[in-house]
């Protein structure tokens, strides 16, 4: 168990390091000279050289990498190219906003999936089922950025119920969370539906009914637990999709999260900021992946007991 855990931690560290390293070198090799980008065009060469020295980009590449890793271990992510702000502060300020958005969206998506999936499975091929499957097909074809815009046009510009952009309070969460949740939901809905239908055909479901359990308990305890397993697996598999969705939603709603931070930094070629953002996002991704695995083990005794 301890060996497995150690192995897992090593793997997580490896992934994080690999992401950061790739990002580091791609930025340095592909992105052009930040010293020229920081200064206005036509700046004299001496000032550019000075800027390079200040940014540290005059050093050999490998030397820069070693310095970067050394600082990273001490928890220092450097300062931004432009405002000379500590990257760590900016990143740590943005992270909770993204986590709140993504977390609420996952919960909402799981909620949508459990409700719609159970309703659909109640009478397979009935009109309710077909409606739910239709929703799922439409939601799967809907790009998050478009849904976000349409929601803004209707609920913010037309009805003025929710703010169109910025994180300003509880109401400002509604549209971004709904946008992200709806785009996450279609596969979950179909999985829950399938799981509920399969469970109803299982011997143990009939045996539990024969034991006198009521329909409510059968569905809310027995079928629900069976359905929760594939949902958790899928959420784990969709983390990448969630990350991408979060970036888009943050761009649309001007949400002060990691995704927006990275996008803005990309625009200004702010290397330390991009690296910091990528690092934090990679850590969040890897940790969430781990949490999903733990949750699965916790919920499925076949995995938990089988392994120990």
């Amino acid at each position: 168990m301890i060996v497995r855990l150690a192995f897992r931690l090593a793997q997580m560290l490896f992934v994080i390091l690999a992401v950061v390293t790739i990002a580091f070198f791609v930025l340095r090799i592909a992105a052009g000279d930040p010293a020229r980008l920081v200064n206005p065009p036509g700046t004299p060469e001496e000032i550019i050289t000075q800027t390079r020295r200040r940014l540290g980009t005059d050093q050999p590449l490998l030397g820069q990498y070693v310095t970067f890793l050394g600082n990273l271990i001490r928890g220092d992510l450097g300062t931004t190219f432009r405002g000379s702000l500590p990257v760590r502060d900016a990143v740590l300020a943005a992270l909770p906003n993204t986590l709140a958005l993504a977390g609420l969206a996952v919960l909402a998506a799981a909620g949508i999936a459990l409700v719609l999936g159970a309703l659909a499975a109640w009478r397979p091929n009935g009109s309710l089922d077909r409606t739910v499957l239709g929703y799922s097909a439409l939601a799967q074809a809907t790009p998050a950025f478009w849904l976000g815009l349409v929601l803004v046009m209707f609920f913010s510009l037309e009805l003025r119920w929710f703010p169109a952009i910025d994180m300003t309070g509880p109401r400002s969460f509604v549209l971004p969370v709904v946008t992200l949740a709806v785009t996450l939901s279609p596969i979950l809905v179909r999985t829950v539906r399938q799981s509920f239908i399969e469970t109803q055909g299982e011997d143990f479901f009939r045996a539990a009914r024969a034991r006198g359990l009521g329909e409510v308990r059968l569905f809310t305890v027995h079928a629900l637990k069976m359905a929760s397993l594939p949902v958790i697996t899928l959420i784990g598999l969709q983390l990448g999709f969630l990350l991408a969705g979060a970036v888009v939603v943050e761009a649309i709603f001007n949400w002060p999260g990691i995704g927006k931070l990275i996008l803005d930094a990309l625009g200004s070629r702010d290397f330390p900021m991009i690296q910091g953002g990528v690092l934090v996002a990679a850590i969040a991704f890897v940790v969430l992946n781990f949490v999903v695995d733990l949750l699965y083990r916790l919920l499925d005794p076949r995995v938990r007991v089988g392994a120990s």
Partner: protein
Amino acid sequence: MSDALPAVEAAAPAPARRGRFTVRALARRRAAVIGSTGLVLIAGLAVFAPWVAPHDPAAQDLGNILAPPFWDSAGSWEHALGTDALGRDTASRLIHGARNSLMISFAAMLIGSLLGLAAGIVSGFFGGKVDTATMRLGEIQLAFPFILLAIAILGVIPGRTPLHLILVLGIPGWIVYARVVRSRVLAERERDHVRAAAALGARRSRQLFRYVLPSVWQVVPVIAMLDIGFLVIMESMLSFLGLGLPPRFPSWGAMLAEGRRNMVISPWLSILPGLAIMLTVLSVNLTADGLADVFDPKLRKGTFRRTVLRLPERAEPDTANDHGAATRRAAAPPQRSVEAGARHAPAASGSALLRVRDLKVEFPLPGRTIKAVRGVSFDLGRGETLGIVGESGSGKSVTALSIGQLLDSPGRVTGGQILFDGQDLTRISDRAMAALRGRRIAMIFQNPTASLSPVFSIGFQMREAIRRHGRLHREEASRIAHDSLWAVGIGDPDRVLGQYPFQLSGGMNQRVMIAMAMAARPDLLIADEPTTALDVTTQAQILERLRDLVQAEGTSLIFITHDIALVAEHADRVVVMYAGQICESGPTEQVISEPRHPYTRALLESVPRPDLPAGVRLEAIPGELPDPASIPDGCPFAPRCPHVMDVCRTVNPDQFPVAPDHRAACHLWSPDRTRAGTP
């Protein structure tokens, strides 16, 4: 699984499946037709974009910016969908956007699928280290926030070209193809014909192309289609973020991003590209569904599960595991039945706990109706044990399930009465029935391990059931659970309570089921093939334990089995079923010693007996059960009966009395013929 549903399916699988196919798949197929038509249209627009588009998508007309579409009062057909902020024609840009989006997605799909196909085939075919390495790589990639890197890379690369986009979108997809292809190759490799080819010395590469690729080819197009749908969305997303196609290529995502700036005055500029994406992805996904229907035969199989073989489950730890069917039967020699039957006198019919009267159960399927039970009547006295015996598909399990009102959809009771303690179970409310279940009518099933949920502990499930029958504290329920496990012969109840069904043997799980059933002290216990899945020693122990418990509690028992030898040993009365009807019923002792129906006789003759010398052939019953959807007039056993007469083929016999309390549904015992003597 009891034999209820297999009985339905075994009836005639092909028409049943065809029925499903028309009703269900018609809707699916219509969706697939709509989807593929849409896809062909969109792909056509994409391919012929330069000729179809009314304008040059890049041509600016600053004198005519943000022109409204034709449905607006100010709109014109010159620019049917209006113009953007630079006066470019929206319709033309949408058409060229389709071209770019589909081309990028298709190319990315090709890269991902070719990589994955190669990796999957190599991995599946060579196995070993190659396989481990490939799958490990895939795992690492799945744990890798690829999209993050993609955004970072695309965001900083100067002079981004479509090729960059194709590579970044396409490469990560390999793992999906690789996994599916690998599993197909693995499955195919184990097939007989591939193995035979290997044994004959066919070269590996030839095997690969000859046998494995055709099977693999069935899955890849479906995944590829779904992949394209996903890639269209990803491409638009990157373009929307300004990380996708360079600005000189019209792209739906970029159009949306530009349109967003004029969201208030020209909302269609944002809405139209999104609709284009939706329609495209929807068409692609519907087509993928249709392809799955055509290609993947697995999806066409019905949901009916078929239990062809009933293998014994994990053996009890204390028993040897080599028990053939013959030894199993020999363990319960019929001659012991006489004393077994004599032990408890049959209950007087006046105090019947359960009266089943002319019960009829049907499974209406599209186009045909399966009559699983066709007019069954019997009584069960208090404390009495009734054995119901018959082959799979005889209707015995369906009868049992209808007593518990547990028939699987679409099965339903279409006639008759089930009087339990005076109330007709076919007419009471679901609530009232749920209150009876478990508490007064308990059931145990054939496959004990599958009858317990794999994700809850034994203790949880027992407490749950026990607390259902009375408002008890958790501790109280635990104590009852503990005691009832002890009562069924489990030596360490505390350990078992903390375990899960998959950690226990089939025999242990069946003990748990019996303990759960008996914990509520039910009036009636229905045991549907309770030991069929178990090995013979366990079977004997469990049946003995069950009999002791039932006798001690005075519980009435319906014991359903295909094994007439077990009935002989354990039941007071016996009902022999065939094709949904009772063919013979009476006190066990009498039916076993003087069987009157030819079918009962045949069943008894097929039981191996230790007193017969080795080498004596057992009589198998020739022929098969009739198709329950179209049972012919007359006696259902007539086609297999050695004593068949003309009347048997036209008239279904009544239950003729052959002795006190002993009836047989056979024309040989018709009052008109009894004088002719036994055959």
